[in-house]
């Protein structure tokens, strides 16, 4: 399944476009994040993408068909929407809420049958919400409510799930629970499109990202979008994008430092890795805890034939792990993109080692 937006623009007031010439796409199994400052129109963008709001120009298509031409029943059985959780009516039980997600499968004059109730229960079980089955939604904690809404979105077995700030207002633990669920869905082949206030969440989870900034929209691989320069442009904040190294992985992080001077004509951000487009020599070591994941690793490696010049893989059957080393020669940005893609896989540890620069 592929959801596409082609050269679309949106305006609330005539002649004052909120954003124009938006193009983006999301496919099954992909995680795409939308970032942008408060008021940039992230929620509006989501609503317009799904057709709840109308584009001024351009269109959204699902598998090539204009969303406007798809009947609501068909459209909403293929994509699901998880709105922001605050301000929602909470007078139904968790189980009832999940059943609302199956509205398209339940006849207009029918009530949910045993099979549908069983299915809703199995979704709750999968997300470890079974104990909340008969609780009212307005008695839940923020994290529990968010997970309930995700369960509801999953109920129609959609190809794409669209979420509006799913991890806002949640504590660390619940953020991880929500983000892990999104990663899990993507691993199962569901496309996940979400708004977020946290660039580091995008970096750690999203394959591609879209940044809204002053009415313009840029989209690309997350690693290319979330750069110090782009953050400075969009948010007016000086931030550092860097990596934490842990024993098993390198973790992407974004740390906001200070406001930038508004009057400054152009934003100058010193980029420590200013040599992004210079060629570099590197090797990535990958340790994969599940044999199944190695197929996905191969898939990703096949997308980078231009920089890959050598690889070696070895299973270590005793501990059921797979060790891979790949050797790379090419633009540093490409190498980083590959490393980022690999880092999004579950149960995979990666580390990149660059060769020392040649003495000139």
């Amino acid at each position, binding site marked *: 399944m592929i959801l596409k937006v082609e050269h679309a623009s949106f305006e609330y007031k005539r002649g004052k476009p909120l954003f124009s010439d938006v193009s983006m796409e999301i496919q099954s199994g992909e995680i795409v994040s939308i970032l942008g400052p408060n008021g940039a129109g992230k929620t509006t963008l989501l609503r317009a993408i*799904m057709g709840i709001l109308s584009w001024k120009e351009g269109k959204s298509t699902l598998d090539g068909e204009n969303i406007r031409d798809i009947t609501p029943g068909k459209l909403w059985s293929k994509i699901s929407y998880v709105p922001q959780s605050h301000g929602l*009516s909470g*007078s139904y039980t968790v189980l009832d809420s999940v059943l609302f997600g199956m509205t398209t499968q339940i006849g207009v004059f029918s009530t949910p049958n045993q099979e549908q109730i069983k299915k809703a229960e199995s979704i709750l079980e999968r997300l470890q919400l079974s104990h909340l089955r008969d609780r009212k939604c307005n008695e839940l904690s923020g994290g529990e409510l968010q997970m309930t809404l995700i369960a509801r979105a999953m109920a129609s077995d959609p190809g794409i799930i669209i979420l509006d700030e799913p991890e806002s207002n949640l504590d660390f633990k619940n953020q991880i629970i929500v983000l892990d669920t999104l990663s899990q869905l993507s691993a199962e082949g569901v496309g996940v499109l979400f708004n977020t206030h946290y660039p580091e969440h995008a970096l750690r989870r999203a394959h591609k990202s879209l940044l809204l900034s002053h009415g313009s929209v840029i989209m690309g691989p997350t690693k290319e979008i979330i750069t110090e320069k782009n953050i400075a442009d969009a948010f007016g904040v000086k931030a550092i994008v860097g990596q934490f190294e842990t024993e098993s992985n390198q973790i992407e992080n974004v740390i906001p430092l200070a406001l930038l001077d508004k009057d400054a004509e152009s934003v100058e951000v010193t980029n420590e890795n200013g040599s992004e487009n210079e060629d570099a020599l590197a090797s990535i070591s990958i340790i994969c805890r599940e044999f199944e994941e190695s197929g996905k690793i191969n898939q990703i490696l096949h997308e980078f034939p231009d920089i890959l010049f050598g690889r070696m893989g070895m299973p270590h059957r005793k501990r059921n792990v797979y060790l891979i080393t790949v050797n790379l020669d090419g633009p540093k940005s490409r190498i980083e993109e590959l490393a980022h893609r690999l880092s999004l896989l579950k149960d995979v540890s990666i580390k990149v080692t660059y060769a020392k620069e040649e003495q000139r």
Partner: protein
Amino acid sequence: MNTKRSPLWKTAYILGLILLPVIAMLICLCIGRYFVSVPQVLSSIAARANGGEGVERLAYITVWNVRLPRLLLAFIVGAALSCAGLLFQSLFQNPLATPDTLGVAGGASFGAVLSILLGFSMIIMQLVSFTFGCVAVLLTMLAAKGKTTSMNTIVLSGIMMGSLFSALVSLVKFCADQEQQLPSITYWLMGSLQSATYTSLLIGLIPIAVSVVILFLLRWRLNLLLLSEEEAVSSGSNIKALRLLAILCATAATASSISMCGQIGWVGLIVPHMCRMMLGNDHRYLIPASISLGGTFLILVDTLARSATAAEIPISILTAIIGAPFFLFLMRKKGGWSL
């Protein structure tokens, strides 16, 4: 309601909802200025097939010609008004909504008093009243239709349309003959189930039965009315059509009720709230409960209205006097509810 509904609970619930109005009706058939005992009531009912042979004539006539049509009317109107009130509260997500919110009562009253002024027969009056009730809601919907139709706009339009029609009612009263027409208009406006006949019942029953059956079948889907706009849209159901259908059904049921027995206040507000306090917000339970409890409530109140004193008390006075304290008692005991 946090508790899981057990199969036993469900059986008891269904049985209770069916038995409640039946028992109430049986008891109320006995009560009145002329007392009929329960065995007499039962044998009168059983003797219907052979035209009442072997039963005391007075009891037979009292049961079949006087009390039964009136009790049936009470049940039907109570059920219709409760369902309509329930629906409007959900539709507008507003606990203060009543069957009258969209101006249907104003329209139907105007139709009825106009018919009295023009001297139409009872049956014609019923039809004119029903038609004007529907016209009032149609006008409300047209007035509210604009670039952005929000539920608040519809409610405001309804209030405006209601006051417009009540002004027209006053105008008719002003024009009416003070000796005969004005008293009968005033009496009609207070609401009474006295005029019940099988013919008027049959005519009035059709729109109510159709509406209530549709609402009963829609009972699960009606839950979507309480969701936020984007949740409702993204559920994939045609929420606009659902809302329109709900408004149509509630309007037809209310207009038909008012056309039969005038304005009976409070039932449409109190009974749905009582149901919500006891059952939560699930329309799967609320619709049947509103039908049963609304009908039973009006059966009891009407019996009291006709038998408590020598002269009949207008029913709207009693619905409020009985309903309001009971409602407050329930609200304090249950700690209110949220829509």
